[in-house]
Protein backbone atom coordinates (compact mmCIF):
# COMPACT_ATOMS: atom_id res chain seq x y z
CA UNK A 1 0.00 0.00 0.00
CA UNK A 2 2.79 2.39 0.92
CA UNK A 3 4.71 1.50 -2.21
CA UNK A 4 1.60 1.98 -4.34
CA UNK A 5 1.01 5.37 -2.77
CA UNK A 6 4.54 6.52 -3.50
CA UNK A 7 4.41 5.83 -7.19
CA UNK A 8 1.55 7.45 -9.04
CA UNK A 9 -0.86 5.00 -10.66
CA UNK A 10 -0.13 3.91 -14.22
CA UNK A 11 -2.90 5.14 -16.51
CA UNK A 12 -4.09 2.70 -19.17
CA UNK A 13 -6.54 3.10 -22.02
CA UNK A 14 -8.21 -0.14 -23.08
CA UNK A 15 -9.62 0.26 -26.56
CA UNK A 16 -11.66 -1.91 -28.89
CA UNK A 17 -10.84 -0.83 -32.43
CA UNK A 18 -13.01 -1.72 -35.38
CA UNK A 19 -16.08 -3.77 -35.80
CA UNK A 20 -16.04 -6.73 -33.46
CA UNK A 21 -18.49 -6.65 -30.62
CA UNK A 22 -16.78 -8.98 -28.18
CA UNK A 23 -15.34 -7.16 -25.21
CA UNK A 24 -15.16 -9.80 -22.52
CA UNK A 25 -11.39 -10.01 -22.90
CA UNK A 26 -11.08 -6.22 -22.74
CA UNK A 27 -13.18 -6.12 -19.57
CA UNK A 28 -11.28 -8.97 -17.91
CA UNK A 29 -8.03 -7.16 -18.68
CA UNK A 30 -9.40 -3.83 -17.43
CA UNK A 31 -10.42 -5.49 -14.21
CA UNK A 32 -7.02 -7.18 -13.75
CA UNK A 33 -5.17 -3.92 -14.30
CA UNK A 34 -7.49 -2.12 -11.89
CA UNK A 35 -6.78 -4.77 -9.27
CA UNK A 36 -3.07 -4.26 -9.92
CA UNK A 37 -3.47 -0.63 -8.83
CA UNK A 38 -3.71 1.00 -12.25
CA UNK A 39 -6.23 3.57 -13.45
CA UNK A 40 -7.98 2.05 -16.42
CA UNK A 41 -10.11 3.93 -18.91
CA UNK A 42 -12.27 1.72 -21.07
CA UNK A 43 -13.57 3.27 -24.28
CA UNK A 44 -16.16 0.72 -25.26
CA UNK A 45 -16.72 -0.90 -28.64
CA UNK A 46 -16.31 0.20 -32.26
CA UNK A 47 -13.55 2.77 -31.91
CA UNK A 48 -11.91 4.39 -34.90
CA UNK A 49 -8.13 5.03 -34.85
CA UNK A 50 -8.86 8.77 -34.48
CA UNK A 51 -11.13 8.18 -31.47
CA UNK A 52 -8.53 5.99 -29.78
CA UNK A 53 -5.76 8.53 -30.32
CA UNK A 54 -7.94 11.38 -29.09
CA UNK A 55 -8.90 9.50 -25.93
CA UNK A 56 -5.29 8.49 -25.26
CA UNK A 57 -4.07 12.06 -25.72
CA UNK A 58 -6.78 13.80 -23.69
CA UNK A 59 -6.63 11.24 -20.90
CA UNK A 60 -2.83 11.44 -21.00
CA UNK A 61 -2.39 7.70 -20.55
CA UNK A 62 0.90 5.87 -20.24
CA UNK A 63 -0.32 2.70 -21.92
CA UNK A 64 -2.71 1.90 -24.76
CA UNK A 65 -4.08 -1.66 -24.80
CA UNK A 66 -5.79 -2.72 -28.01
CA UNK A 67 -8.17 -5.64 -27.92
CA UNK A 68 -9.10 -7.12 -31.25
CA UNK A 69 -10.88 -10.29 -32.34
CA UNK A 70 -11.98 -9.34 -35.83
CA UNK A 71 -8.79 -10.16 -37.71
CA UNK A 72 -8.46 -6.58 -38.93
CA UNK A 73 -5.35 -5.83 -36.85
CA UNK A 74 -3.04 -5.57 -39.88
CA UNK A 75 -5.27 -2.86 -41.31
CA UNK A 76 -6.15 -1.03 -38.10
CA UNK A 77 -2.99 -1.11 -35.98
CA UNK A 78 -0.80 0.87 -38.40
CA UNK A 79 -3.45 3.58 -38.57
CA UNK A 80 -3.85 3.67 -34.80
CA UNK A 81 -0.11 3.97 -34.30
CA UNK A 82 0.06 6.72 -36.89
CA UNK A 83 -2.76 8.61 -35.20
CA UNK A 84 -1.11 8.21 -31.80
CA UNK A 85 2.03 9.75 -33.29
CA UNK A 86 0.03 12.61 -34.78
CA UNK A 87 -1.50 13.26 -31.37
CA UNK A 88 1.98 13.59 -29.87
CA UNK A 89 1.99 10.26 -28.05
CA UNK A 90 5.31 8.87 -29.20
CA UNK A 91 6.35 7.53 -25.82
CA UNK A 92 3.16 5.67 -24.96
CA UNK A 93 3.45 1.90 -24.44
CA UNK A 94 1.29 -0.01 -26.91
CA UNK A 95 0.20 -3.56 -26.19
CA UNK A 96 -2.39 -5.75 -27.84
CA UNK A 97 -4.52 -8.74 -27.07
CA UNK A 98 -6.98 -10.98 -28.85
CA UNK A 99 -6.82 -13.34 -31.76
CA UNK A 100 -3.69 -12.37 -33.64
CA UNK A 101 -2.00 -15.16 -35.64
CA UNK A 102 1.67 -15.82 -34.92
CA UNK A 103 2.77 -14.91 -38.42
CA UNK A 104 1.44 -11.36 -38.00
CA UNK A 105 3.29 -10.73 -34.77
CA UNK A 106 6.73 -9.73 -36.17
CA UNK A 107 5.21 -7.03 -38.37
CA UNK A 108 3.13 -5.62 -35.53
CA UNK A 109 6.13 -5.69 -33.20
CA UNK A 110 8.11 -3.76 -35.77
CA UNK A 111 5.33 -1.16 -35.99
CA UNK A 112 5.71 -0.48 -32.30
CA UNK A 113 3.37 -2.88 -30.54
CA UNK A 114 5.52 -3.81 -27.55
CA UNK A 115 3.74 -7.03 -26.66
CA UNK A 116 0.93 -9.20 -27.95
CA UNK A 117 -1.03 -11.28 -25.50
CA UNK A 118 -2.87 -14.08 -27.25
CA UNK A 119 -5.64 -16.27 -25.86
CA UNK A 120 -4.57 -18.15 -22.75
CA UNK A 121 -2.01 -15.58 -21.62
CA UNK A 122 -1.98 -15.53 -17.81
CA UNK A 123 -3.35 -12.17 -16.63
CA UNK A 124 -0.41 -11.73 -14.31
CA UNK A 125 2.00 -11.91 -17.25
CA UNK A 126 0.27 -9.02 -19.00
CA UNK A 127 0.03 -7.02 -15.76
CA UNK A 128 3.73 -7.50 -15.02
CA UNK A 129 4.74 -6.57 -18.56
CA UNK A 130 2.80 -3.32 -18.35
CA UNK A 131 4.12 -2.54 -14.91
CA UNK A 132 7.69 -3.01 -16.08
CA UNK A 133 7.47 -1.25 -19.42
CA UNK A 134 5.09 1.69 -18.81
CA UNK A 135 7.05 4.90 -19.40
CA UNK A 136 8.03 6.80 -16.30
CA UNK A 137 7.38 10.38 -17.19
CA UNK A 138 7.69 12.54 -14.15
CA UNK A 139 8.55 12.71 -10.51
CA UNK A 140 5.83 12.70 -7.94
CA UNK A 141 6.49 15.20 -5.20
Amino acid at each position, binding site marked *: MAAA*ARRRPIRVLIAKPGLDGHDRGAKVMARALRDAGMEVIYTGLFQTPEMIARAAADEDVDVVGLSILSGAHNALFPRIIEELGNAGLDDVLIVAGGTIPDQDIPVLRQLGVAAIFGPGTPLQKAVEFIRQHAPVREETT
Partner: protein
Amino acid sequence: MSDLIERFLAGDRRALARLLTHAENRTELGRHAEQAIFGRTGRAQVVGVTGPPGAGKSTLVNALIREFRDRGRTVAVLAVDPSSPLTGGAALGDRIRMLENAGDPGVYIRSMATRGRMGGLALAVSSATHLLDAFGFDVILIETVGVGQGEVDIADIADTTVLLQVPGLGDSIQTIKAGILEIADILVVNKADQPDARQVVRDLRNMLLLGDHTSRTTPILETVATEGTGIPELASAIDAHYTHINQTGGREQRVHRRLLREVEQLAGERFERWFTAMLASDDLAAERQALLDRRVDPRSLAERIISHYAITHSGRRSG
Protein backbone atom coordinates in the same frame (compact mmCIF):
# COMPACT_ATOMS: atom_id res chain seq x y z
CA MET B 1 9.98 22.34 -18.33
CA SER B 2 8.08 25.64 -18.56
CA ASP B 3 7.80 24.81 -22.25
CA LEU B 4 4.63 22.92 -21.32
CA ILE B 5 3.15 26.02 -19.71
CA GLU B 6 3.98 28.09 -22.79
CA ARG B 7 2.37 25.53 -25.05
CA PHE B 8 -0.67 25.51 -22.76
CA LEU B 9 -0.96 29.27 -22.98
CA ALA B 10 -0.72 29.01 -26.77
CA GLY B 11 -3.73 26.69 -26.76
CA ASP B 12 -1.99 23.33 -27.22
CA ARG B 13 -4.46 20.65 -26.16
CA ARG B 14 -1.77 18.07 -25.51
CA ALA B 15 -0.06 20.48 -23.09
CA LEU B 16 -3.38 20.83 -21.27
CA ALA B 17 -3.55 17.02 -20.98
CA ARG B 18 0.01 16.85 -19.60
CA LEU B 19 -0.57 19.66 -17.11
CA LEU B 20 -3.73 17.99 -15.86
CA THR B 21 -1.59 14.94 -15.08
CA HIS B 22 0.89 17.17 -13.24
CA ALA B 23 -1.96 18.69 -11.27
CA GLU B 24 -3.23 15.24 -10.38
CA ASN B 25 0.17 14.06 -9.29
CA ARG B 26 0.86 17.21 -7.31
CA THR B 27 4.19 17.83 -9.01
CA GLU B 28 6.39 20.90 -8.79
CA LEU B 29 5.61 21.74 -12.40
CA GLY B 30 1.92 21.39 -11.63
CA ARG B 31 2.28 24.01 -8.91
CA HIS B 32 4.21 26.35 -11.24
CA ALA B 33 1.55 25.96 -13.88
CA GLU B 34 -1.17 26.84 -11.44
CA GLN B 35 0.65 30.03 -10.48
CA ALA B 36 1.18 30.93 -14.11
CA ILE B 37 -2.40 30.45 -15.22
CA PHE B 38 -4.46 31.48 -12.21
CA GLY B 39 -4.86 35.06 -13.44
CA ARG B 40 -6.74 33.74 -16.45
CA THR B 41 -9.33 31.82 -14.47
CA GLY B 42 -12.78 32.82 -13.29
CA ARG B 43 -14.46 32.97 -16.66
CA ALA B 44 -15.86 29.47 -17.10
CA GLN B 45 -19.33 28.44 -16.04
CA VAL B 46 -18.84 25.45 -13.73
CA VAL B 47 -21.69 22.95 -13.53
CA GLY B 48 -21.69 20.00 -11.14
CA VAL B 49 -23.65 16.86 -11.91
CA THR B 50 -24.17 14.51 -9.00
CA GLY B 51 -26.47 11.66 -7.98
CA PRO B 52 -26.47 7.99 -7.04
CA PRO B 53 -24.63 5.31 -9.03
CA GLY B 54 -26.52 4.35 -12.15
CA ALA B 55 -28.79 7.40 -12.07
CA GLY B 56 -27.57 8.35 -15.53
CA LYS B 57 -25.04 11.07 -14.73
CA SER B 58 -22.66 10.24 -17.58
CA THR B 59 -25.46 9.87 -20.08
CA LEU B 60 -26.93 13.17 -18.94
CA VAL B 61 -23.53 14.85 -19.18
CA ASN B 62 -23.18 13.50 -22.70
CA ALA B 63 -26.55 14.99 -23.64
CA LEU B 64 -25.60 18.30 -22.02
CA ILE B 65 -22.32 18.44 -23.96
CA ARG B 66 -24.29 18.22 -27.19
CA GLU B 67 -26.82 20.81 -26.04
CA PHE B 68 -24.20 23.36 -24.97
CA ARG B 69 -22.25 22.74 -28.19
CA ASP B 70 -25.44 23.44 -30.16
CA ARG B 71 -25.62 26.71 -28.25
CA GLY B 72 -22.16 27.59 -29.52
CA ARG B 73 -20.17 27.01 -26.36
CA THR B 74 -17.08 24.89 -25.81
CA VAL B 75 -17.32 22.23 -23.12
CA ALA B 76 -14.85 20.45 -20.87
CA VAL B 77 -15.81 17.49 -18.71
CA LEU B 78 -14.15 16.16 -15.58
CA ALA B 79 -15.59 12.73 -14.85
CA VAL B 80 -14.68 11.36 -11.43
CA ASP B 81 -14.87 7.68 -10.51
CA PRO B 82 -13.72 5.99 -7.31
CA SER B 83 -10.27 4.52 -6.69
CA SER B 84 -10.08 1.14 -5.00
CA PRO B 85 -9.50 1.51 -1.27
CA LEU B 86 -7.53 -1.75 -1.43
CA THR B 87 -5.21 -1.40 -4.41
CA GLY B 88 -5.50 2.25 -5.44
CA GLY B 89 -6.56 1.13 -8.91
CA ALA B 90 -9.62 2.45 -10.70
CA ALA B 91 -11.89 1.60 -13.59
CA LEU B 92 -12.86 4.89 -15.19
CA GLY B 93 -15.95 4.16 -17.23
CA ASP B 94 -17.73 7.47 -17.69
CA ARG B 95 -16.11 8.30 -20.99
CA ILE B 96 -17.82 5.36 -22.65
CA ARG B 97 -21.14 7.26 -22.49
CA MET B 98 -19.64 10.35 -24.08
CA LEU B 99 -18.14 8.95 -27.26
CA GLU B 100 -20.31 10.75 -29.76
CA ASN B 101 -18.47 13.97 -28.97
CA ALA B 102 -15.07 12.36 -29.38
CA GLY B 103 -14.10 14.10 -32.59
CA ASP B 104 -15.19 17.61 -31.69
CA PRO B 105 -12.28 19.97 -30.91
CA GLY B 106 -14.65 22.07 -28.79
CA VAL B 107 -15.04 19.20 -26.33
CA TYR B 108 -12.48 17.90 -23.85
CA ILE B 109 -13.23 14.91 -21.63
CA ARG B 110 -10.99 13.82 -18.80
CA SER B 111 -11.51 10.91 -16.42
CA MET B 112 -10.20 11.21 -12.91
CA ALA B 113 -9.93 8.76 -10.01
CA THR B 114 -10.66 9.88 -6.46
CA ARG B 115 -7.31 8.50 -5.20
CA GLY B 116 -8.56 8.04 -1.68
CA ARG B 117 -10.47 11.28 -1.39
CA MET B 118 -13.94 11.13 0.17
CA GLY B 119 -16.72 13.59 -0.60
CA GLY B 120 -17.45 12.59 -4.18
CA LEU B 121 -14.55 14.32 -5.93
CA ALA B 122 -10.80 13.90 -6.42
CA LEU B 123 -8.39 16.16 -4.60
CA ALA B 124 -7.12 17.55 -7.88
CA VAL B 125 -10.53 18.63 -9.17
CA SER B 126 -9.99 22.25 -8.10
CA SER B 127 -6.62 22.47 -9.86
CA ALA B 128 -7.99 20.72 -12.93
CA THR B 129 -10.92 23.13 -13.05
CA HIS B 130 -8.52 26.08 -12.97
CA LEU B 131 -6.57 24.60 -15.89
CA LEU B 132 -9.68 23.97 -18.00
CA ASP B 133 -10.99 27.43 -17.13
CA ALA B 134 -7.73 29.13 -18.10
CA PHE B 135 -7.55 27.10 -21.30
CA GLY B 136 -10.74 28.88 -22.30
CA PHE B 137 -13.58 26.39 -22.08
CA ASP B 138 -16.93 28.14 -21.72
CA VAL B 139 -18.61 25.42 -19.71
CA ILE B 140 -16.97 22.92 -17.36
CA LEU B 141 -19.13 19.95 -16.42
CA ILE B 142 -17.95 18.08 -13.35
CA GLU B 143 -19.44 14.64 -12.84
CA THR B 144 -19.00 13.32 -9.31
CA VAL B 145 -18.68 9.68 -8.33
CA GLY B 146 -21.98 7.97 -7.68
CA VAL B 147 -22.99 9.44 -4.35
CA GLY B 148 -25.16 8.44 -1.42
CA GLN B 149 -26.42 11.03 1.01
CA GLY B 150 -23.49 13.03 2.24
CA GLU B 151 -21.01 13.67 -0.57
CA VAL B 152 -21.47 17.38 -0.99
CA ASP B 153 -18.01 18.64 -2.03
CA ILE B 154 -19.31 19.48 -5.50
CA ALA B 155 -21.30 22.41 -4.09
CA ASP B 156 -17.99 24.04 -3.11
CA ILE B 157 -16.68 23.89 -6.67
CA ALA B 158 -19.66 24.39 -8.97
CA ASP B 159 -21.60 27.54 -9.83
CA THR B 160 -24.62 25.35 -10.35
CA THR B 161 -25.13 21.91 -8.82
CA VAL B 162 -27.49 19.54 -10.59
CA LEU B 163 -28.68 16.59 -8.52
CA LEU B 164 -30.10 13.57 -10.29
CA GLN B 165 -32.69 11.38 -8.70
CA VAL B 166 -34.27 8.29 -10.19
CA PRO B 167 -37.35 6.21 -9.35
CA GLY B 168 -37.00 3.36 -6.92
CA LEU B 169 -34.66 4.77 -4.30
CA GLY B 170 -37.06 5.13 -1.39
CA ASP B 171 -40.06 6.97 -0.08
CA SER B 172 -40.70 10.59 0.85
CA ILE B 173 -38.86 10.29 4.16
CA GLN B 174 -35.62 10.18 2.18
CA THR B 175 -36.41 13.64 0.86
CA ILE B 176 -36.50 15.33 4.26
CA LYS B 177 -33.10 14.06 5.33
CA ALA B 178 -30.23 16.46 5.58
CA GLY B 179 -27.37 16.25 3.14
CA ILE B 180 -27.16 16.10 -0.57
CA LEU B 181 -30.68 17.30 -1.38
CA GLU B 182 -29.86 20.58 0.33
CA ILE B 183 -27.01 21.48 -1.99
CA ALA B 184 -28.93 21.06 -5.23
CA ASP B 185 -29.58 24.18 -7.28
CA ILE B 186 -31.53 22.11 -9.78
CA LEU B 187 -33.22 18.77 -9.15
CA VAL B 188 -33.54 16.36 -12.04
CA VAL B 189 -35.65 13.24 -12.07
CA ASN B 190 -33.96 11.15 -14.74
CA LYS B 191 -35.46 8.01 -16.26
CA ALA B 192 -38.73 9.95 -16.16
CA ASP B 193 -40.32 7.42 -18.50
CA GLN B 194 -40.36 4.87 -15.70
CA PRO B 195 -43.62 4.25 -13.81
CA ASP B 196 -42.65 5.68 -10.42
CA ALA B 197 -41.09 8.86 -11.75
CA ARG B 198 -44.18 10.97 -11.07
CA GLN B 199 -44.10 9.97 -7.42
CA VAL B 200 -40.45 11.01 -7.12
CA VAL B 201 -41.30 14.40 -8.59
CA ARG B 202 -44.19 14.77 -6.13
CA ASP B 203 -42.01 13.79 -3.17
CA LEU B 204 -39.36 16.30 -4.16
CA ARG B 205 -41.93 19.04 -4.69
CA ASN B 206 -43.43 18.37 -1.27
CA MET B 207 -39.98 18.45 0.26
CA LEU B 208 -39.41 21.91 -1.21
CA LEU B 209 -42.82 23.11 0.00
CA LEU B 210 -41.90 22.17 3.55
CA GLY B 211 -38.94 24.51 3.41
CA ASP B 212 -38.17 28.17 3.27
CA HIS B 213 -40.19 30.04 0.65
CA THR B 214 -38.31 33.30 0.71
CA SER B 215 -35.41 32.25 -1.49
CA ARG B 216 -35.50 31.11 -5.08
CA THR B 217 -37.30 27.80 -5.47
CA THR B 218 -35.24 24.92 -6.75
CA PRO B 219 -36.52 23.83 -10.16
CA ILE B 220 -37.46 20.17 -10.59
CA LEU B 221 -37.02 18.87 -14.11
CA GLU B 222 -37.76 15.56 -15.71
CA THR B 223 -35.39 13.99 -18.22
CA VAL B 224 -34.84 10.80 -20.15
CA ALA B 225 -31.15 11.31 -20.80
CA THR B 226 -30.79 8.31 -23.13
CA GLU B 227 -33.31 9.91 -25.50
CA GLY B 228 -32.41 13.55 -24.92
CA THR B 229 -35.85 14.30 -23.50
CA GLY B 230 -35.84 17.36 -21.24
CA ILE B 231 -32.21 18.23 -21.99
CA PRO B 232 -32.79 21.65 -23.65
CA GLU B 233 -34.97 22.60 -20.67
CA LEU B 234 -32.23 21.46 -18.29
CA ALA B 235 -29.56 23.46 -20.12
CA SER B 236 -31.83 26.51 -19.98
CA ALA B 237 -32.42 26.00 -16.25
CA ILE B 238 -28.66 25.77 -15.69
CA ASP B 239 -28.14 29.01 -17.61
CA ALA B 240 -31.02 30.69 -15.78
CA HIS B 241 -29.54 29.76 -12.43
CA TYR B 242 -26.14 31.07 -13.55
CA THR B 243 -27.68 34.36 -14.67
CA HIS B 244 -29.57 34.57 -11.40
CA ILE B 245 -26.50 34.13 -9.19
CA ASN B 246 -24.55 36.58 -11.33
CA GLN B 247 -27.24 39.22 -10.98
CA THR B 248 -27.82 38.78 -7.27
CA GLY B 249 -24.16 38.66 -6.33
CA GLY B 250 -24.57 35.06 -5.27
CA ARG B 251 -21.86 33.92 -7.63
CA GLU B 252 -19.33 36.26 -6.12
CA GLN B 253 -20.12 34.78 -2.72
CA ARG B 254 -19.80 31.27 -4.06
CA VAL B 255 -16.50 31.99 -5.75
CA HIS B 256 -15.18 33.63 -2.63
CA ARG B 257 -16.17 30.67 -0.48
CA ARG B 258 -14.79 28.26 -3.06
CA LEU B 259 -11.36 29.87 -3.18
CA LEU B 260 -11.05 30.11 0.59
CA ARG B 261 -12.11 26.49 0.89
CA GLU B 262 -9.47 25.55 -1.64
CA VAL B 263 -6.77 27.29 0.36
CA GLU B 264 -8.01 25.46 3.42
CA GLN B 265 -7.89 22.13 1.63
CA LEU B 266 -4.45 22.67 0.18
CA ALA B 267 -3.07 23.72 3.55
CA GLY B 268 -4.82 20.77 5.17
CA GLU B 269 -3.37 18.42 2.58
CA ARG B 270 0.16 19.67 3.26
CA PHE B 271 -0.31 19.52 7.01
CA GLU B 272 -1.75 16.03 6.85
CA ARG B 273 1.23 14.81 4.88
CA TRP B 274 3.60 16.42 7.38
CA PHE B 275 1.64 14.96 10.27
CA THR B 276 1.58 11.44 8.85
CA ALA B 277 5.33 11.53 8.23
CA MET B 278 5.96 12.96 11.68
CA LEU B 279 3.86 10.31 13.37
CA ALA B 280 5.77 7.56 11.61
CA SER B 281 9.21 9.09 12.20
CA ASP B 282 11.92 7.65 14.44
CA ASP B 283 11.76 10.78 16.62
CA LEU B 284 8.41 9.62 17.90
CA ALA B 285 9.24 5.97 18.47
CA ALA B 286 9.11 6.41 22.26
CA GLU B 287 5.80 8.22 22.10
CA ARG B 288 4.31 5.53 19.90
CA GLN B 289 5.41 2.93 22.43
CA ALA B 290 3.91 5.00 25.24
CA LEU B 291 0.65 5.05 23.30
CA LEU B 292 0.69 1.28 22.86
CA ASP B 293 1.49 0.84 26.58
CA ARG B 294 -1.45 3.13 27.32
CA ARG B 295 0.79 5.58 29.18
CA VAL B 296 -0.28 8.40 26.86
CA ASP B 297 -3.68 8.82 25.25
CA PRO B 298 -4.24 9.52 21.53
CA ARG B 299 -5.48 13.05 22.06
CA SER B 300 -2.49 14.11 24.15
CA LEU B 301 -0.11 12.68 21.60
CA ALA B 302 -1.92 14.55 18.82
CA GLU B 303 -1.69 17.78 20.83
CA ARG B 304 2.01 17.21 21.45
CA ILE B 305 2.74 16.78 17.74
CA ILE B 306 0.73 19.87 16.85
CA SER B 307 2.56 22.06 19.32
CA HIS B 308 5.83 20.64 18.00
CA TYR B 309 4.67 21.70 14.52
CA ALA B 310 3.87 25.20 15.76
CA ILE B 311 7.29 25.54 17.41
CA THR B 312 9.39 24.28 14.49
CA HIS B 313 7.49 26.36 11.98
CA SER B 314 7.47 29.62 13.93
CA GLY B 315 11.18 29.00 14.58
CA ARG B 316 11.77 28.68 10.85
CA ARG B 317 10.00 31.96 10.16
CA SER B 318 12.03 34.00 12.65
CA GLY B 319 15.30 32.25 11.72
